[in-house]
């Protein structure tokens, strides 16, 4: 039986959780949010990926970007490989989609800075 330990990040209390990887039984939580947190971490951990892409602009060389929502943690490095080859042109604005459906995750990569020229 394999178990995993983690700190719950749902509130500042920071419960020390332990989850059975096979049965998904959670201990150490003091509320249901902790249980859900631990289960998601084992079954489908999601992360917001933040990084940069090259931009053709008068003022900037890099454009900061992030995934619109959490993407599967396991695909982060694949996503970085894709992002490495991306180059965008100014003007571009906060929220503009830079890569749609990043690595088939259904999640878009968006600009997080306004670059006007």
């Amino acid at each position: 039986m394999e178990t995993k330990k983690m700190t719950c990040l749902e509130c500042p209390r920071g419960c020390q959780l332990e989850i059975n990887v096979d049965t998904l039984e959670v201990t150490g939580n003091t509320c249901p949010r902790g249980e859900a947190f631990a289960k998601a971490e084992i079954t489908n951990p999601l992360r917001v990926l933040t990084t940069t892409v090259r931009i053709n602009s008068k003022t900037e060389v890099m454009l900061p970007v992030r995934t619109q929502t959490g993407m599967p943690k396991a695909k982060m490095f694949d996503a970085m490989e894709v992002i490495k080859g991306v180059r965008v042109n100014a003007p571009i604005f906060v929220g503009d989609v830079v890569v749609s459906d990043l690595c088939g995750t259904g999640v878009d990569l968006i600009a997080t800075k306004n670059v006007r020229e």
Partner: protein
Amino acid sequence: MEYDVIIIGCGVTGAAAAYMLSKYRLNVAVLEAENDVAIGTSKANSAIIHAGYDPVPGTLMARLNVEGNKLVGEISEQLHVPISHCGSLVIAFSDSELEHLKKLYDRGIKNGVPELYLLDREETLKEEPNLSEEVCGSLYAKTASVISPWDLTLAMAEVAVKNGTDLFLNTKVNAITKEDGIFTVTAENGNTFKGKYIVNAAGVYSDVVHEMIGEKEFTVNPTKGEYCLLDKSEGTRVKHVIFQCPNELGKGVLVGPTVHGNLIVGPNAEPGTGRDDKANTSKALDFVKKTALRSVPSISFRENIRNFAGVRANTEFDEFLIGESKTVKGFLNLAGIKSPGLTASPAIGKYACELLETMGLELVEKDDFDNTREVIRFKELGAEEKNDLIKKDPRYGRVICRCETVTEGEIVASLHEVIPARSIAGVKRRCNAGMGRCQGGFCSPRVAAIIARELGIDETEIMEDRAESYVLIGKLKEGTNNV
């Protein structure tokens, strides 16, 4: 090209020799192993222009110290080298140390040091209220100063270059031979240089360089000294350089203002592990801090901004070793230049000319010797001058180093000087960018970008300081970031 004189080493000694020789109609080459001048002992020392009461009367060291003190003052004014005539105090904590001060005073008088005074406890504390209550008297030397040692080196080297001296950086000497009265110097990079006379100003390597062609006359015993440099917030803790009574370890740990307005504390004296051992150790730094607190108990080491270490080119002799090699005619050693070497340097340079003349070199003064140097230090200008300068060149209106208020204009100028900066530290030595409390945290990426732009190179080629001290390993997202 056959040179009249080849100087090996462009620390303060080599630069001074080059400066003094550049007044004459001669072909002179200076060979420097590193990628900039003043990169060894000349940049890592106490930066003090000593009054001259320390050396034993009658010695060369005593004469060149007192003469050098005067010359450094003149050169600094002429060539815009920052210097502060703050004076120094040697403080005593006991009757026996008071006795020693009396001895130093007498020595100073014999050496011809002007304006030396013995102060009692009250007078001492009046001059320096932050000194320890236990102080019982001091020796006040009004002619002691603090200086920017790399700027002094640069200034002299620049004027030499302006007047026709050839400076070769990244030129480490590997071999010296002599045939038909002509020396051939071979560098590690394969270049060779021919010359009639050699001046050995190779600092901690001066014995090695001498023995490339001559027989052993002396051995350099590299002696490391470690320092703490504190923020300007501590820079007014003392007004004068404060020495403790010298002991067998040297002049002891000093506390003093720097010419840039910081506080310097140090050095200790330890053999270290070799000529190139400039590493700081916590043991030495602890010793330095503890010892300094004995002089000035209120120093706040929380304000420390940098530590560094320098290596003194001590030899087995308590004297400068200046003279023609006993086994090689035409080979002039300027060796064993330990404290007060910085002070003495211009006098050593002058003396080197005299010695070369007695060795047969003909010295004919140039009519067109250009003894000037232009430096703009934006911070020191008045409001109107600042405005005029920015109107003329808008780059002086953009502050790059916020801690030291250094503008883009000054950084650009440092990259196009007679001896131009080629690294981030080279820029720092020339215009102070990155010297302040954030130690380049904010400005170094901006300085790197300016260097790349001005020199037309890629930022990944930029060095922090010495050759191969690269800052960046590649560009992001261009396929070079694979591990």
